Protein backbone atom coordinates (compact mmCIF):
# COMPACT_ATOMS: atom_id res chain seq x y z
CA UNK A 1 0.00 0.00 0.00
CA UNK A 2 1.59 3.25 -1.12
CA UNK A 3 1.71 6.57 0.70
CA UNK A 4 -1.02 8.27 -1.27
CA UNK A 5 -3.45 5.42 -0.57
CA UNK A 6 -2.57 5.62 3.09
CA UNK A 7 -3.12 9.38 3.20
CA UNK A 8 -6.41 9.02 1.34
CA UNK A 9 -7.69 6.51 3.87
CA UNK A 10 -6.54 8.65 6.79
CA UNK A 11 -8.26 11.69 5.35
CA UNK A 12 -11.41 9.70 4.68
CA UNK A 13 -11.45 8.46 8.27
CA UNK A 14 -11.08 12.02 9.55
CA UNK A 15 -14.06 13.14 7.47
CA UNK A 16 -16.53 10.37 8.17
CA UNK A 17 -18.51 10.37 11.42
CA UNK A 18 -17.97 7.10 13.31
CA UNK A 19 -21.65 6.16 13.35
CA UNK A 20 -21.68 6.15 9.55
CA UNK A 21 -18.54 4.11 9.13
CA UNK A 22 -20.20 0.72 9.56
CA UNK A 23 -22.90 1.16 6.90
CA UNK A 24 -20.43 2.72 4.48
CA UNK A 25 -18.02 -0.20 4.86
CA UNK A 26 -20.91 -2.61 4.33
CA UNK A 27 -21.87 -0.84 1.10
CA UNK A 28 -18.24 -0.98 -0.02
CA UNK A 29 -18.55 -4.78 0.37
CA UNK A 30 -14.81 -5.41 0.09
CA UNK A 31 -14.27 -6.57 3.66
CA UNK A 32 -14.88 -10.22 4.46
CA UNK A 33 -17.35 -11.06 7.20
CA UNK A 34 -14.44 -11.92 9.50
CA UNK A 35 -12.71 -8.62 8.77
CA UNK A 36 -15.91 -6.72 9.32
CA UNK A 37 -16.41 -8.50 12.64
CA UNK A 38 -12.85 -7.82 13.74
CA UNK A 39 -13.52 -4.08 13.65
CA UNK A 40 -14.71 -2.71 16.95
CA UNK A 41 -16.71 0.41 16.18
CA UNK A 42 -16.67 1.57 19.78
CA UNK A 43 -12.91 2.08 19.49
CA UNK A 44 -11.39 5.47 18.88
CA UNK A 45 -11.10 6.66 15.31
CA UNK A 46 -7.35 6.46 15.47
CA UNK A 47 -7.48 2.78 16.43
CA UNK A 48 -10.06 2.06 13.76
CA UNK A 49 -7.91 3.77 11.14
CA UNK A 50 -4.93 1.65 12.13
CA UNK A 51 -7.00 -1.53 11.94
CA UNK A 52 -8.35 -0.60 8.51
CA UNK A 53 -4.87 0.30 7.28
CA UNK A 54 -3.72 -3.17 8.28
CA UNK A 55 -6.56 -4.82 6.41
CA UNK A 56 -5.85 -2.73 3.32
CA UNK A 57 -2.18 -3.62 3.53
CA UNK A 58 -3.06 -7.29 3.81
CA UNK A 59 -5.25 -7.21 0.73
CA UNK A 60 -2.84 -4.95 -1.19
CA UNK A 61 -5.58 -2.45 -1.83
CA UNK A 62 -4.61 0.74 -3.62
CA UNK A 63 -5.98 4.24 -4.07
CA UNK A 64 -8.44 2.76 -6.54
CA UNK A 65 -10.18 0.86 -3.76
CA UNK A 66 -9.99 3.63 -1.17
CA UNK A 67 -11.41 6.19 -3.57
CA UNK A 68 -14.33 3.82 -4.11
CA UNK A 69 -14.99 3.94 -0.40
CA UNK A 70 -14.82 7.72 -0.39
CA UNK A 71 -17.21 7.89 -3.31
CA UNK A 72 -19.81 5.75 -1.52
CA UNK A 73 -19.65 8.10 1.44
CA UNK A 74 -19.94 11.27 -0.68
CA UNK A 75 -22.88 9.90 -2.70
CA UNK A 76 -24.74 9.16 0.52
CA UNK A 77 -23.81 12.52 2.04
CA UNK A 78 -23.79 14.95 -0.84
CA UNK A 79 -24.56 18.11 1.12
CA UNK A 80 -20.93 19.07 1.67
CA UNK A 81 -18.71 21.60 0.03
CA UNK A 82 -19.92 24.16 -2.50
CA UNK A 83 -21.96 22.91 -5.44
CA UNK A 84 -22.28 24.77 -8.73
CA UNK A 85 -24.82 24.09 -11.46
CA UNK A 86 -24.04 24.10 -15.18
CA UNK A 87 -26.38 23.85 -18.10
CA UNK A 88 -25.72 21.93 -21.29
CA UNK A 89 -26.84 23.78 -24.43
CA UNK A 90 -27.94 22.89 -27.98
CA UNK A 91 -28.37 19.13 -27.84
CA UNK A 92 -27.60 17.13 -30.95
CA UNK A 93 -30.32 14.96 -32.45
CA UNK A 94 -29.06 11.81 -30.77
CA UNK A 95 -28.55 13.43 -27.34
CA UNK A 96 -31.62 11.75 -25.91
CA UNK A 97 -30.34 8.27 -26.69
CA UNK A 98 -27.03 8.52 -24.82
CA UNK A 99 -26.87 5.63 -22.41
CA UNK A 100 -24.64 4.95 -19.46
CA UNK A 101 -22.03 2.57 -20.88
CA UNK A 102 -21.55 4.77 -23.91
CA UNK A 103 -21.35 7.91 -21.76
CA UNK A 104 -18.81 6.31 -19.42
CA UNK A 105 -16.50 5.27 -22.25
CA UNK A 106 -16.81 8.57 -24.08
CA UNK A 107 -16.28 10.72 -21.01
CA UNK A 108 -13.19 8.82 -19.90
CA UNK A 109 -11.63 8.79 -23.33
CA UNK A 110 -12.35 12.48 -24.00
CA UNK A 111 -10.94 13.55 -20.67
CA UNK A 112 -7.81 11.46 -20.95
CA UNK A 113 -7.22 12.90 -24.41
CA UNK A 114 -7.21 16.37 -22.88
CA UNK A 115 -5.02 15.63 -19.89
CA UNK A 116 -2.48 12.88 -19.42
CA UNK A 117 -2.76 12.16 -15.74
CA UNK A 118 -6.32 11.86 -14.65
CA UNK A 119 -8.22 9.25 -12.74
CA UNK A 120 -11.94 8.95 -13.36
CA UNK A 121 -14.42 6.82 -11.51
CA UNK A 122 -18.07 6.69 -12.56
CA UNK A 123 -20.86 5.19 -10.52
CA UNK A 124 -24.58 5.22 -10.97
CA UNK A 125 -26.71 5.95 -7.95
CA UNK A 126 -30.10 4.34 -7.32
CA UNK A 127 -31.93 7.54 -8.29
CA UNK A 128 -30.49 7.39 -11.85
CA UNK A 129 -27.84 10.02 -11.06
CA UNK A 130 -24.45 9.43 -12.65
CA UNK A 131 -21.71 10.30 -10.18
CA UNK A 132 -18.25 11.07 -11.50
CA UNK A 133 -15.15 11.38 -9.31
CA UNK A 134 -12.16 12.96 -10.98
CA UNK A 135 -8.69 13.07 -9.45
CA UNK A 136 -6.61 15.53 -11.44
CA UNK A 137 -2.92 15.46 -12.16
CA UNK A 138 -0.96 17.44 -14.71
CA UNK A 139 1.65 16.60 -17.31
CA UNK A 140 4.25 15.87 -14.67
CA UNK A 141 2.41 14.78 -11.56
CA UNK A 142 0.14 11.85 -10.89
CA UNK A 143 -3.54 12.37 -10.05
CA UNK A 144 -4.09 13.97 -6.67
CA UNK A 145 -6.73 11.87 -4.94
CA UNK A 146 -6.87 14.18 -1.94
CA UNK A 147 -8.62 16.93 -3.93
CA UNK A 148 -11.07 15.17 -6.21
CA UNK A 149 -13.80 16.91 -8.20
CA UNK A 150 -17.26 15.44 -7.98
CA UNK A 151 -19.67 15.77 -10.90
CA UNK A 152 -23.31 14.66 -10.93
CA UNK A 153 -25.38 14.40 -14.08
CA UNK A 154 -28.73 12.89 -14.87
CA UNK A 155 -28.55 11.58 -18.42
CA UNK A 156 -31.07 13.17 -20.79
CA UNK A 157 -31.32 16.30 -18.67
CA UNK A 158 -29.48 19.55 -19.40
CA UNK A 159 -28.05 19.98 -15.89
CA UNK A 160 -24.67 19.13 -14.41
CA UNK A 161 -23.72 19.67 -10.76
CA UNK A 162 -20.10 20.14 -9.81
CA UNK A 163 -18.11 20.59 -6.64
CA UNK A 164 -14.41 21.41 -6.03
CA UNK A 165 -13.49 22.45 -9.53
CA UNK A 166 -10.66 24.89 -10.18
CA UNK A 167 -10.75 27.37 -13.04
CA UNK A 168 -7.88 25.48 -14.69
CA UNK A 169 -9.85 22.23 -14.72
CA UNK A 170 -13.14 23.80 -15.81
CA UNK A 171 -12.52 23.95 -19.58
CA UNK A 172 -11.29 20.35 -19.57
CA UNK A 173 -14.35 19.08 -17.76
CA UNK A 174 -16.66 21.21 -19.88
CA UNK A 175 -15.29 19.83 -23.11
CA UNK A 176 -15.46 16.23 -21.95
CA UNK A 177 -19.04 16.70 -20.76
CA UNK A 178 -20.23 18.48 -23.90
CA UNK A 179 -18.79 15.81 -26.17
CA UNK A 180 -19.91 12.80 -24.20
CA UNK A 181 -23.48 14.03 -23.67
CA UNK A 182 -23.79 15.03 -27.36
CA UNK A 183 -24.32 18.75 -26.82
CA UNK A 184 -22.70 21.79 -28.39
CA UNK A 185 -21.98 23.98 -25.41
CA UNK A 186 -22.18 24.33 -21.66
CA UNK A 187 -22.77 27.43 -19.55
CA UNK A 188 -22.81 28.48 -15.96
CA UNK A 189 -26.36 28.15 -14.62
CA UNK A 190 -25.71 30.83 -11.97
CA UNK A 191 -26.87 28.63 -9.15
CA UNK A 192 -24.73 27.50 -6.26
CA UNK A 193 -25.09 26.40 -2.68
CA UNK A 194 -23.88 24.09 0.03
CA UNK A 195 -26.69 21.57 -0.36
CA UNK A 196 -26.44 19.44 -3.46
CA UNK A 197 -30.00 18.16 -2.96
CA UNK A 198 -31.39 21.70 -2.85
CA UNK A 199 -29.73 22.72 -6.11
CA UNK A 200 -30.77 19.51 -7.80
CA UNK A 201 -34.39 19.74 -6.61
CA UNK A 202 -34.67 23.34 -7.73
CA UNK A 203 -33.46 22.67 -11.27
CA UNK A 204 -35.07 19.27 -11.70
CA UNK A 205 -38.33 20.72 -10.33
CA UNK A 206 -38.52 18.09 -7.65
CA UNK A 207 -40.02 20.35 -5.03
CA UNK A 208 -43.66 21.07 -4.48
CA UNK A 209 -44.76 24.03 -6.54
CA UNK A 210 -48.08 25.78 -5.93
CA UNK A 211 -50.32 26.64 -8.86
CA UNK A 212 -53.60 28.53 -9.03
CA UNK A 213 -55.74 25.54 -9.95
CA UNK A 214 -59.47 25.14 -9.81
CA UNK A 215 -59.33 22.74 -6.93
CA UNK A 216 -56.53 24.25 -4.92
CA UNK A 217 -54.77 22.02 -2.49
CA UNK A 218 -55.65 23.52 0.86
CA UNK A 219 -52.57 25.44 1.84
CA UNK A 220 -51.90 24.84 5.45
CA UNK A 221 -53.03 27.76 7.56
CA UNK A 222 -50.80 28.79 10.36
CA UNK A 223 -52.17 28.63 13.87
CA UNK A 224 -52.53 32.26 14.67
CA UNK A 225 -54.02 33.12 18.00
CA UNK A 226 -56.09 36.24 17.45
CA UNK A 227 -58.33 37.10 20.34
CA UNK A 228 -60.84 39.19 18.46
CA UNK A 229 -62.93 37.11 16.04
CA UNK A 230 -63.90 40.22 14.06
CA UNK A 231 -60.29 41.16 13.44
CA UNK A 232 -59.62 37.58 12.54
CA UNK A 233 -62.40 37.51 9.98
CA UNK A 234 -61.35 40.84 8.53
CA UNK A 235 -57.76 39.72 8.11
CA UNK A 236 -58.32 36.13 7.06
CA UNK A 237 -59.02 37.02 3.41
CA UNK A 238 -55.93 39.12 2.68
CA UNK A 239 -53.78 36.77 4.77
CA UNK A 240 -54.90 33.71 2.78
CA UNK A 241 -54.34 35.67 -0.40
CA UNK A 242 -50.81 36.64 0.66
CA UNK A 243 -50.04 33.04 1.59
CA UNK A 244 -51.32 31.81 -1.78
CA UNK A 245 -49.19 34.34 -3.65
CA UNK A 246 -46.13 33.58 -1.54
CA UNK A 247 -46.55 29.85 -2.19
CA UNK A 248 -47.08 30.41 -5.90
CA UNK A 249 -43.85 32.39 -6.03
CA UNK A 250 -41.63 30.17 -3.90
CA UNK A 251 -43.33 26.79 -3.59
CA UNK A 252 -45.36 24.83 -1.12
CA UNK A 253 -44.20 22.65 1.75
CA UNK A 254 -40.50 21.96 2.19
CA UNK A 255 -38.39 24.20 -0.02
CA UNK A 256 -34.90 23.54 -1.40
CA UNK A 257 -32.39 24.92 1.08
CA UNK A 258 -30.49 27.70 -0.60
CA UNK A 259 -28.11 29.75 1.53
CA UNK A 260 -27.82 32.93 -0.51
CA UNK A 261 -28.87 35.02 -3.46
CA UNK A 262 -26.61 37.65 -4.97
CA UNK A 263 -27.72 40.62 -7.08
CA UNK A 264 -25.00 42.58 -8.80
CA UNK A 265 -26.25 46.00 -9.72
CA UNK A 266 -24.68 47.90 -12.60
CA UNK A 267 -27.07 50.79 -12.88
CA UNK A 268 -27.21 54.57 -13.04
CA UNK A 269 -27.42 56.32 -9.72
CA UNK A 270 -30.66 58.33 -9.65
CA UNK A 271 -31.18 60.92 -6.96
CA UNK A 272 -31.88 64.57 -7.80
CA UNK A 273 -30.53 65.77 -4.47
CA UNK A 274 -27.17 64.17 -5.08
CA UNK A 275 -25.86 65.74 -8.31
CA UNK A 276 -22.30 64.45 -8.06
CA UNK A 277 -23.41 60.84 -7.99
CA UNK A 278 -26.23 61.20 -10.53
CA UNK A 279 -24.03 62.92 -13.11
CA UNK A 280 -21.28 60.35 -13.02
CA UNK A 281 -20.61 58.75 -16.37
CA UNK A 282 -19.80 55.24 -15.28
CA UNK A 283 -22.44 52.97 -13.83
CA UNK A 284 -23.05 52.68 -10.14
CA UNK A 285 -21.96 49.28 -8.95
CA UNK A 286 -23.09 47.51 -5.87
CA UNK A 287 -23.82 44.01 -4.69
CA UNK A 288 -26.86 42.99 -2.70
CA UNK A 289 -26.66 39.66 -0.98
CA UNK A 290 -29.42 37.86 0.84
CA UNK A 291 -28.28 35.11 3.17
CA UNK A 292 -30.15 32.66 5.34
CA UNK A 293 -29.98 29.04 6.36
CA UNK A 294 -33.01 28.53 4.13
CA UNK A 295 -33.38 31.54 1.90
CA UNK A 296 -36.49 30.52 -0.03
CA UNK A 297 -38.35 29.73 3.16
CA UNK A 298 -37.36 33.08 4.63
CA UNK A 299 -38.55 34.91 1.53
CA UNK A 300 -41.82 33.00 1.46
CA UNK A 301 -42.37 33.88 5.09
CA UNK A 302 -41.65 37.56 4.41
CA UNK A 303 -44.24 37.60 1.65
CA UNK A 304 -46.91 35.64 3.46
CA UNK A 305 -46.60 37.63 6.67
CA UNK A 306 -46.77 40.92 4.80
CA UNK A 307 -43.20 42.09 5.50
CA UNK A 308 -42.51 41.95 1.76
CA UNK A 309 -45.20 43.13 -0.62
CA UNK A 310 -47.28 40.77 -2.71
CA UNK A 311 -47.41 39.95 -5.55
CA UNK A 312 -43.76 39.07 -5.05
CA UNK A 313 -41.31 41.16 -7.06
CA UNK A 314 -39.85 39.30 -10.05
CA UNK A 315 -36.39 39.97 -8.61
CA UNK A 316 -37.11 37.54 -5.79
CA UNK A 317 -39.44 35.11 -7.54
CA UNK A 318 -36.83 34.67 -10.28
CA UNK A 319 -34.75 32.57 -7.88
CA UNK A 320 -37.03 29.51 -8.01
CA UNK A 321 -38.57 30.42 -11.38
CA UNK A 322 -35.27 30.56 -13.25
CA UNK A 323 -33.43 28.25 -10.89
CA UNK A 324 -30.55 30.63 -10.19
CA UNK A 325 -29.26 32.68 -7.31
CA UNK A 326 -26.81 35.00 -9.03
CA UNK A 327 -28.14 37.93 -11.04
CA UNK A 328 -26.60 40.89 -12.79
CA UNK A 329 -28.98 43.82 -13.02
CA UNK A 330 -28.37 46.55 -15.54
CA UNK A 331 -30.38 49.51 -16.81
CA UNK A 332 -32.75 48.76 -19.62
CA UNK A 333 -31.37 51.18 -22.21
CA UNK A 334 -27.68 50.47 -23.09
CA UNK A 335 -25.50 47.61 -21.93
CA UNK A 336 -26.24 44.62 -24.16
CA UNK A 337 -24.22 42.37 -21.87
CA UNK A 338 -26.84 42.36 -19.14
CA UNK A 339 -28.17 39.08 -17.89
CA UNK A 340 -31.37 40.37 -16.44
CA UNK A 341 -32.88 43.60 -17.61
CA UNK A 342 -34.53 45.48 -14.85
CA UNK A 343 -35.60 49.05 -14.76
CA UNK A 344 -34.47 50.63 -11.59
CA UNK A 345 -36.18 53.76 -10.49
CA UNK A 346 -35.25 56.14 -7.76
Amino acid at each position, binding site marked *: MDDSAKRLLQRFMRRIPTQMLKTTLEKWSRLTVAQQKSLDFTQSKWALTEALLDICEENKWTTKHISELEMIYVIDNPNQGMWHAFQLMDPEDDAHSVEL*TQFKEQFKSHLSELIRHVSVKIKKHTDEAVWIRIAWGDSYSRPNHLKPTYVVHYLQTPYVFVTSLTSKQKPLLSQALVLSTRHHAIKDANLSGKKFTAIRDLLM*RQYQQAFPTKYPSPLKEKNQTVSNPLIEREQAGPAANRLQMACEAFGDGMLPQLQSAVYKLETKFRDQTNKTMTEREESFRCVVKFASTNLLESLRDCASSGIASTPVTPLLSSIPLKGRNYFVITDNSPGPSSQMHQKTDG
Partner: protein
Amino acid sequence: MEGASTRGVLSHLSLLEVQARSRKTQPQQRSRVKELKAEAEALMIQRDKLKAEIQTHERLQKLRMSMDKQCPREQEEEEEMDEDSEDSQLLRLMARHTHLKDLLHAHHLIGGYDIIKTHQGKGVCVSVATSYEGVCLDTYNLEIDLKPKLRISRHNVPPFIPLNSLAEQSNMQTNIRAFLDTLSRHLNAFAGRKQQLKLLKEQHKSVEVMESNVLCSILVLMLTVPREKTAVLCTLDYTDHTRCLPTRVHFDCEDKELPDSPEWKKNCHLLMETPVHTALLTMKKMGNIV
Protein backbone atom coordinates in the same frame (compact mmCIF):
# COMPACT_ATOMS: atom_id res chain seq x y z
CA MET B 1 -149.68 40.60 -45.97
CA GLU B 2 -151.83 43.34 -47.32
CA GLY B 3 -148.92 44.99 -49.03
CA ALA B 4 -147.94 41.70 -50.47
CA SER B 5 -151.32 41.15 -52.00
CA THR B 6 -151.20 44.52 -53.63
CA ARG B 7 -147.73 43.94 -55.17
CA GLY B 8 -148.39 40.49 -56.41
CA VAL B 9 -147.43 36.98 -55.49
CA LEU B 10 -144.19 36.80 -57.38
CA SER B 11 -142.60 39.79 -55.75
CA HIS B 12 -143.71 38.45 -52.42
CA LEU B 13 -142.10 35.14 -53.20
CA SER B 14 -138.85 36.78 -54.18
CA LEU B 15 -138.95 38.76 -50.97
CA LEU B 16 -139.44 35.54 -49.07
CA GLU B 17 -136.55 34.02 -50.96
CA VAL B 18 -134.25 36.90 -50.02
CA GLN B 19 -135.40 36.63 -46.45
CA ALA B 20 -134.75 32.91 -46.41
CA ARG B 21 -131.31 33.39 -47.92
CA SER B 22 -130.38 36.03 -45.46
CA ARG B 23 -131.60 33.85 -42.64
CA LYS B 24 -129.25 31.13 -43.86
CA THR B 25 -126.12 33.35 -44.00
CA GLN B 26 -126.56 35.00 -40.62
CA PRO B 27 -125.52 31.95 -38.54
CA GLN B 28 -122.59 31.50 -40.93
CA GLN B 29 -121.32 34.98 -40.17
CA ARG B 30 -121.82 34.42 -36.51
CA SER B 31 -119.61 31.31 -36.50
CA ARG B 32 -116.92 33.23 -38.44
CA VAL B 33 -116.78 35.87 -35.75
CA LYS B 34 -116.51 33.16 -33.13
CA GLU B 35 -113.61 31.60 -34.97
CA LEU B 36 -111.77 34.88 -35.25
CA LYS B 37 -112.35 35.61 -31.61
CA ALA B 38 -110.91 32.22 -30.63
CA GLU B 39 -107.93 32.81 -32.84
CA ALA B 40 -107.32 36.17 -31.28
CA GLU B 41 -107.56 34.63 -27.86
CA ALA B 42 -105.08 31.90 -28.80
CA LEU B 43 -102.71 34.49 -30.17
CA MET B 44 -103.06 36.50 -27.03
CA ILE B 45 -102.25 33.45 -24.94
CA GLN B 46 -99.25 32.80 -27.15
CA ARG B 47 -98.20 36.41 -26.79
CA ASP B 48 -98.43 36.17 -23.05
CA LYS B 49 -96.49 32.97 -23.15
CA LEU B 50 -93.78 34.55 -25.25
CA LYS B 51 -93.78 37.60 -23.04
CA ALA B 52 -93.36 35.37 -20.02
CA GLU B 53 -90.66 33.48 -21.82
CA ILE B 54 -88.85 36.66 -22.66
CA GLN B 55 -89.14 37.73 -19.09
CA THR B 56 -87.83 34.42 -17.86
CA HIS B 57 -85.04 34.58 -20.39
CA GLU B 58 -84.13 38.07 -19.31
CA ARG B 59 -84.07 37.03 -15.72
CA LEU B 60 -82.06 33.97 -16.59
CA GLN B 61 -79.63 36.15 -18.48
CA LYS B 62 -79.34 38.41 -15.48
CA LEU B 63 -78.71 35.49 -13.22
CA ARG B 64 -76.19 34.10 -15.67
CA MET B 65 -74.38 37.43 -15.82
CA SER B 66 -73.99 37.50 -12.10
CA MET B 67 -72.95 33.87 -12.15
CA ASP B 68 -70.34 34.48 -14.84
CA LYS B 69 -69.02 37.40 -12.91
CA GLN B 70 -68.91 35.11 -9.94
CA CYS B 71 -69.59 37.98 -7.68
CA PRO B 72 -71.12 36.45 -4.58
CA ARG B 73 -72.46 39.70 -3.18
CA GLU B 74 -74.56 40.40 -6.25
CA GLN B 75 -75.99 36.95 -6.13
CA GLU B 76 -77.03 37.51 -2.57
CA GLU B 77 -78.90 40.64 -3.56
CA GLU B 78 -80.62 38.81 -6.35
CA GLU B 79 -81.71 36.17 -3.95
CA GLU B 80 -83.30 38.69 -1.66
CA MET B 81 -85.04 40.35 -4.57
CA ASP B 82 -86.53 37.16 -5.90
CA GLU B 83 -87.44 35.65 -2.64
CA ASP B 84 -91.15 36.29 -3.09
CA SER B 85 -91.34 34.81 -6.59
CA GLU B 86 -92.03 31.13 -6.38
CA ASP B 87 -90.17 30.17 -9.57
CA SER B 88 -86.98 31.86 -8.46
CA GLN B 89 -85.65 28.57 -7.21
CA LEU B 90 -86.34 26.95 -10.55
CA LEU B 91 -84.91 29.90 -12.41
CA ARG B 92 -81.72 29.74 -10.48
CA LEU B 93 -81.43 26.06 -11.20
CA MET B 94 -82.01 26.69 -14.89
CA ALA B 95 -79.37 29.39 -14.92
CA ARG B 96 -76.95 27.10 -13.18
CA HIS B 97 -77.74 24.39 -15.70
CA THR B 98 -76.98 26.56 -18.73
CA HIS B 99 -73.88 27.86 -17.00
CA LEU B 100 -72.59 24.34 -16.42
CA LYS B 101 -73.52 23.32 -19.96
CA ASP B 102 -71.48 26.20 -21.36
CA LEU B 103 -68.55 25.32 -19.14
CA LEU B 104 -68.70 21.71 -20.27
CA HIS B 105 -68.78 22.86 -23.86
CA ALA B 106 -65.74 25.05 -23.29
CA HIS B 107 -64.01 22.17 -21.54
CA HIS B 108 -64.57 20.01 -24.61
CA LEU B 109 -63.36 22.79 -26.87
CA ILE B 110 -60.05 23.06 -25.05
CA GLY B 111 -59.53 19.32 -25.09
CA GLY B 112 -60.51 18.45 -21.56
CA TYR B 113 -57.72 20.33 -19.81
CA ASP B 114 -58.44 22.15 -16.62
CA ILE B 115 -57.84 25.79 -17.33
CA ILE B 116 -58.41 28.72 -15.04
CA LYS B 117 -57.80 32.41 -15.40
CA THR B 118 -54.99 33.98 -13.42
CA HIS B 119 -53.83 37.54 -12.81
CA GLN B 120 -57.25 39.06 -13.57
CA GLY B 121 -57.46 37.37 -16.94
CA LYS B 122 -53.91 38.26 -18.06
CA GLY B 123 -52.91 34.61 -17.94
CA VAL B 124 -54.17 31.09 -17.55
CA CYS B 125 -53.10 28.07 -15.59
CA VAL B 126 -53.46 24.75 -17.41
CA SER B 127 -53.36 21.40 -15.62
CA VAL B 128 -52.34 18.32 -17.55
CA ALA B 129 -53.24 15.15 -15.68
CA THR B 130 -51.50 11.83 -16.31
CA SER B 131 -52.71 8.32 -15.74
CA TYR B 132 -51.74 4.78 -16.60
CA GLU B 133 -54.04 1.77 -16.71
CA GLY B 134 -56.73 3.70 -14.89
CA VAL B 135 -54.44 4.85 -12.11
CA CYS B 136 -54.18 8.62 -11.74
CA LEU B 137 -50.55 9.73 -11.57
CA ASP B 138 -48.87 13.14 -11.33
CA THR B 139 -50.55 16.31 -12.52
CA TYR B 140 -48.42 18.91 -14.25
CA ASN B 141 -49.23 22.60 -14.40
CA LEU B 142 -48.35 25.38 -16.80
CA GLU B 143 -48.89 29.05 -16.18
CA ILE B 144 -49.21 30.84 -19.49
CA ASP B 145 -49.17 34.60 -20.06
CA LEU B 146 -51.61 35.61 -22.80
CA LYS B 147 -50.25 38.99 -23.87
CA PRO B 148 -48.44 40.24 -25.90
CA LYS B 149 -48.11 36.63 -27.00
CA LEU B 150 -48.46 33.25 -25.38
CA ARG B 151 -45.54 32.58 -23.10
CA ILE B 152 -45.04 29.82 -20.55
CA SER B 153 -44.10 31.75 -17.45
CA ARG B 154 -43.96 28.94 -14.90
CA HIS B 155 -44.38 25.18 -14.91
CA ASN B 156 -43.44 22.00 -13.09
CA VAL B 157 -42.66 19.83 -16.08
CA PRO B 158 -39.39 17.97 -15.45
CA PRO B 159 -36.37 19.20 -17.48
CA PHE B 160 -36.03 16.01 -19.52
CA ILE B 161 -39.34 16.75 -21.28
CA PRO B 162 -38.37 19.25 -23.99
CA LEU B 163 -41.15 21.72 -23.22
CA ASN B 164 -39.82 24.66 -25.21
CA SER B 165 -39.09 22.75 -28.37
CA LEU B 166 -42.51 21.08 -28.16
CA ALA B 167 -44.08 24.54 -27.91
CA GLU B 168 -42.15 25.67 -30.95
CA GLN B 169 -42.78 22.57 -33.02
CA SER B 170 -46.52 22.50 -32.47
CA ASN B 171 -46.96 26.25 -33.00
CA MET B 172 -48.23 27.11 -29.59
CA GLN B 173 -49.00 30.69 -30.64
CA THR B 174 -51.64 29.67 -33.15
CA ASN B 175 -52.62 26.25 -31.95
CA ILE B 176 -52.47 25.84 -28.23
CA ARG B 177 -54.66 22.75 -28.37
CA ALA B 178 -52.13 20.91 -30.54
CA PHE B 179 -49.33 21.91 -28.18
CA LEU B 180 -51.23 20.74 -25.11
CA ASP B 181 -52.12 17.47 -26.83
CA THR B 182 -48.49 16.79 -27.72
CA LEU B 183 -47.32 17.70 -24.25
CA SER B 184 -50.01 15.52 -22.71
CA ARG B 185 -48.92 12.59 -24.89
CA HIS B 186 -45.29 13.03 -23.79
CA LEU B 187 -46.22 13.35 -20.12
CA ASN B 188 -48.65 10.44 -20.15
CA ALA B 189 -46.18 8.20 -21.95
CA PHE B 190 -43.46 9.15 -19.46
CA ALA B 191 -45.78 8.51 -16.52
CA GLY B 192 -46.77 5.18 -18.05
CA ARG B 193 -43.18 4.04 -18.57
CA LYS B 194 -42.27 5.13 -15.06
CA GLN B 195 -45.24 3.23 -13.65
CA GLN B 196 -44.31 0.13 -15.66
CA LEU B 197 -40.79 0.26 -14.23
CA LYS B 198 -42.22 0.60 -10.73
CA LEU B 199 -44.55 -2.36 -11.26
CA LEU B 200 -41.72 -4.37 -12.79
CA LYS B 201 -39.54 -3.81 -9.72
CA GLU B 202 -42.42 -4.74 -7.44
CA GLN B 203 -43.65 -7.82 -9.28
CA HIS B 204 -40.46 -9.34 -10.66
CA LYS B 205 -37.83 -9.67 -7.96
CA SER B 206 -35.95 -12.24 -10.05
CA VAL B 207 -35.42 -9.77 -12.87
CA GLU B 208 -32.55 -7.40 -12.32
CA VAL B 209 -32.81 -3.87 -13.70
CA MET B 210 -29.31 -3.22 -15.00
CA GLU B 211 -29.99 0.17 -16.49
CA SER B 212 -32.66 2.81 -16.67
CA ASN B 213 -32.76 6.59 -16.88
CA VAL B 214 -34.88 9.43 -15.54
CA LEU B 215 -36.88 9.68 -18.77
CA CYS B 216 -37.44 5.90 -18.60
CA SER B 217 -36.53 5.72 -22.29
CA ILE B 218 -33.88 3.02 -21.90
CA LEU B 219 -34.31 -0.16 -19.94
CA VAL B 220 -31.76 -2.96 -19.66
CA LEU B 221 -32.89 -6.09 -17.83
CA MET B 222 -31.06 -9.21 -16.77
CA LEU B 223 -33.27 -12.24 -17.36
CA THR B 224 -32.42 -15.82 -16.46
CA VAL B 225 -33.38 -18.93 -18.46
CA PRO B 226 -34.68 -21.52 -15.94
CA ARG B 227 -32.83 -24.85 -16.44
CA GLU B 228 -29.58 -23.76 -18.02
CA LYS B 229 -29.37 -20.66 -15.81
CA THR B 230 -28.06 -18.69 -18.74
CA ALA B 231 -28.32 -14.96 -18.37
CA VAL B 232 -30.03 -12.95 -21.08
CA LEU B 233 -29.47 -9.23 -21.31
CA CYS B 234 -32.65 -7.61 -22.61
CA THR B 235 -32.48 -4.04 -23.90
CA LEU B 236 -35.66 -2.07 -24.43
CA ASP B 237 -35.43 1.21 -26.36
CA TYR B 238 -38.31 3.64 -26.11
CA THR B 239 -37.24 6.00 -28.88
CA ASP B 240 -40.73 7.31 -29.43
CA HIS B 241 -41.20 9.35 -26.26
CA THR B 242 -44.93 9.65 -26.83
CA ARG B 243 -45.46 5.91 -26.39
CA CYS B 244 -45.41 3.48 -23.47
CA LEU B 245 -44.13 0.62 -25.61
CA PRO B 246 -40.58 0.10 -26.85
CA THR B 247 -39.55 0.72 -30.45
CA ARG B 248 -36.73 -1.82 -30.26
CA VAL B 249 -36.15 -4.96 -28.21
CA HIS B 250 -32.77 -6.63 -28.27
CA PHE B 251 -31.44 -9.75 -26.53
CA ASP B 252 -27.79 -10.41 -25.71
CA CYS B 253 -26.74 -13.85 -24.57
CA GLU B 254 -23.67 -16.07 -24.42
CA ASP B 255 -25.68 -18.66 -26.28
CA LYS B 256 -25.64 -16.90 -29.63
CA GLU B 257 -28.46 -18.98 -31.02
CA LEU B 258 -30.93 -18.22 -28.28
CA PRO B 259 -32.18 -14.82 -29.55
CA ASP B 260 -32.94 -16.39 -32.93
CA SER B 261 -34.90 -19.30 -31.51
CA PRO B 262 -38.65 -19.20 -32.26
CA GLU B 263 -39.46 -18.99 -28.56
CA TRP B 264 -37.38 -15.88 -28.00
CA LYS B 265 -38.57 -14.35 -31.24
CA LYS B 266 -42.02 -14.69 -29.76
CA ASN B 267 -40.79 -13.07 -26.55
CA CYS B 268 -39.42 -10.20 -28.58
CA HIS B 269 -42.84 -9.64 -30.16
CA LEU B 270 -44.46 -9.88 -26.77
CA LEU B 271 -42.20 -7.19 -25.33
CA MET B 272 -42.82 -4.97 -28.34
CA GLU B 273 -46.58 -5.21 -28.01
CA THR B 274 -47.36 -5.43 -24.30
CA PRO B 275 -46.20 -3.42 -21.29
CA VAL B 276 -42.94 -4.83 -19.95
CA HIS B 277 -44.28 -6.01 -16.57
CA THR B 278 -47.13 -8.00 -18.12
CA ALA B 279 -44.90 -9.35 -20.88
CA LEU B 280 -42.47 -10.67 -18.27
CA LEU B 281 -45.35 -12.30 -16.43
CA THR B 282 -46.36 -14.15 -19.58
CA MET B 283 -42.77 -15.16 -20.26
CA LYS B 284 -42.54 -16.50 -16.74
CA LYS B 285 -45.73 -18.50 -17.17
CA MET B 286 -44.43 -19.96 -20.43
CA GLY B 287 -41.32 -21.05 -18.57
CA ASN B 288 -38.94 -18.94 -20.62
CA ILE B 289 -37.51 -17.04 -17.69
CA VAL B 290 -37.17 -17.51 -13.96
